[in-house]
């Protein structure tokens, strides 16, 4: 399918083939990554040679310097106090379009660096970029609607699909805003396979569960792509949310004694002594924190921290209050304030075949109910 953005992206990919990648300065690397990221987000083929060229000729240092250059340019974004549809605002248009390019640059950077075992998101450079982006309220204090934002994105509006960064900005309400009915989104799965950006949102955060899982059920290549992504992220200690792990576990079921699918998480190895010269010092108490993402169908997110002594499940309520949080035999006390529930389970209280039940219930009576097991950290 032709579109102005696809045409431009195809042209950019043509142009990249004529560049000496290893000599590019950071600003030019931003252009290359942005184009490659656009192509990945649009599910456009990169061609047979380009992925290898990027691997061989673009260094980690070049990419991280480009991320720095991007953060510096984000610092120069200039936004109005408030948005007025009658007043054209070139600075706002510029910031929104560049914000969208940030997603593309990071998408491409991940694609190039992950096979080398490098997680760009964990770098200080990416964190600085994230801070720079977060410092700008692109909703202009809640005066800009999402529809206006999509208009200002111009041809990049093609990327403003469900699961994109636009979902997470506190836009002004539309005049005739409809409820959170996502049926159209699920229906869309019948037409187009989800992009890599959407798959990543699902793997990391559990976003658009019905959409992604119905697409994976329909297209084997989407299921394979999803499984590869989950395996790669887990192999390199990347973040994989509960929902994606659950989907993965259902493909290769490992059942508990009581039946049902068990979702596996990494557990730290045994406590180690510090260096010999430290003599009688206490052993290290390593821990692994798993960001679980969204506990679909609830409006809640969670994290699970596994140390050598205990498990801690923390659940953050969204718009709907929670009523109950349990982990194995342990029940969380309702929080005094803030909607943050936390439950601790010492290892010696975890019994049976090692599978633990995680159950979260919200005020609307909806349940998240799953079983987990913790195994040794492969790292």
């Amino acid at each position, binding site marked *: 399918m032709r*579109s*102005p953005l696809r*045409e*431009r*992206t*195809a*042209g*950019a990919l*043509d*142009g*990249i083939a*004529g*560049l000496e990648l290893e*000599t*590019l*300065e950071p*600003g*030019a690397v*931003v*252009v*290359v990554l*942005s*184009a490659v990221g656009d192509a990945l987000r649009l599910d456009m083929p990169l061609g047979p040679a380009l992925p290898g060229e990027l691997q061989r000729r673009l260094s980690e240092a070049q990419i991280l310097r480009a991320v720095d*250059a991007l953060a510096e*340019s984000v610092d120069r974004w*200039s*936004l*109005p*106090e*408030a*948005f*007025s*549809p*009658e*007043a*054209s*605002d*070139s*600075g706002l*248009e*510029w910031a929104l*379009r*560049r914000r969208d*390019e940030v997603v593309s640059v990071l998408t491409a950077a991940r694609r190039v660096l992950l096979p080398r075992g490098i997680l760009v998101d964990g770098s200080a450079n990416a964190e600085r970029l994230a801070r720079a982006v977060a410092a700008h*309220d692109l909703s*202009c204090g809640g005066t800009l609607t999402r529809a206006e934002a999509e*208009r200002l*994105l*111009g*041809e990049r*509006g093609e990327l403003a699909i469900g699961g994109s960064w636009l979902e997470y900005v506190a836009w002004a309400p539309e005049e005739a805003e409809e409820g959170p009915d996502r049926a159209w989104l699920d229906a869309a799965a019948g037409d187009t396979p989800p992009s890599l950006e959407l798959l990543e949102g699902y793997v990391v955060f559990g976003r658009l569960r019905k959409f992604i899982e119905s697409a994976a059920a329909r297209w084997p290549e989407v299921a394979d792509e999803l499984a590869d992504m989950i395996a790669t992220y887990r192999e390199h200690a990347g973040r994989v949310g509960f929902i994606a792990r659950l989907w993965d576990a259902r493909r290769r079921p490992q059942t508990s004694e009581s039946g049902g699918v068990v979702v596996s998480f990494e557990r730290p190895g045994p406590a180690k002594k510090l260096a010999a010269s430290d003599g009688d010092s206490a052993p290290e108490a390593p821990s692994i924190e798993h960001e679980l993402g969204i506990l679909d169908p609830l409006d809640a997110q969670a994290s699970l921290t596994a140390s050598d002594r205990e498990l801690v499940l923390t659940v953050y309520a969204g718009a709907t209050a929670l009523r109950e949080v349990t982990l194995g035999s342990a029940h969380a006390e309702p929080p005094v304030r803030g909607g943050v529930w936390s439950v601790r389970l010492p290892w010696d209280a975890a019994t049976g075949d090692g599978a633990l039940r995680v159950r979260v219930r919200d005020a609307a009576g909806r349940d998240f109910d799953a079983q987990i097991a913790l195994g040794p950290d492969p790292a």
Partner: protein
Amino acid sequence: MKLPSVPVLELPGGYRWVQHEVPMKVWQAHLLKHPLGVGALRRRQPLPWNHEGWDLIDPPAITEERRTRFAEEVSNMSFERRRCEVRELRGSRSSKPEPECYHCEPPLVVKCHQRLAEEATPARYAAETERLVRAVVDGAEVSRRLLTGRLLVALKQPDAWAGLVVMTVGRDGKDAVVRCSGADGTRAELYVGPQRQLGWRTTYRSAVAERPNERLSWVLDSPAPAPGLSLSEVFVVPRDWANRHGI
């Protein structure tokens, strides 16, 4: 102010920029917002008045000294007890998106414009607008794919960008617009009216020329595609630039 300076400029795609009188309030509001930096000062985090760099073009549309002199004099002008309400000319700040010129008393607007004309700012602003549009009067149509590829290869060749203006056509909300973006960071926009007749919309600058990635985005950033509009699917560049680059 009459724009353009000639009766008509014929552009590719059947577009015609016929000379028309820009209402003085509108013209004055844009002069204050862009060359005099009121727009830059009215950001959430205020920028320097010369953020758009109208003091850097040759010859400059304004300088700090000329701006200071103008601001002092306009602040003291009055008509029937009404005074200029643009706070930024007095060193303070407003949060409104547009300068107050749109609601100013017409005689005061005229006096203000006459005073600014002594600094040659309106003439320079108009000349820059017309320069950008004239660059593509005999322009060459080029596909998005080809131009993007060529410019990407030219990232490390600053000379390749000299004289480049990219004309794009599309829709910005309810308005159909023609946008002419110069690689030097100046941009002019024209409304598309009935029978493809154009009217001036705005002219502004951005300090993008020094950074290759921002310069590329600047010239290629287009209004939203609108397939029904002539040339909406292609770029237009100056004919001599296209010839120099084998397009």
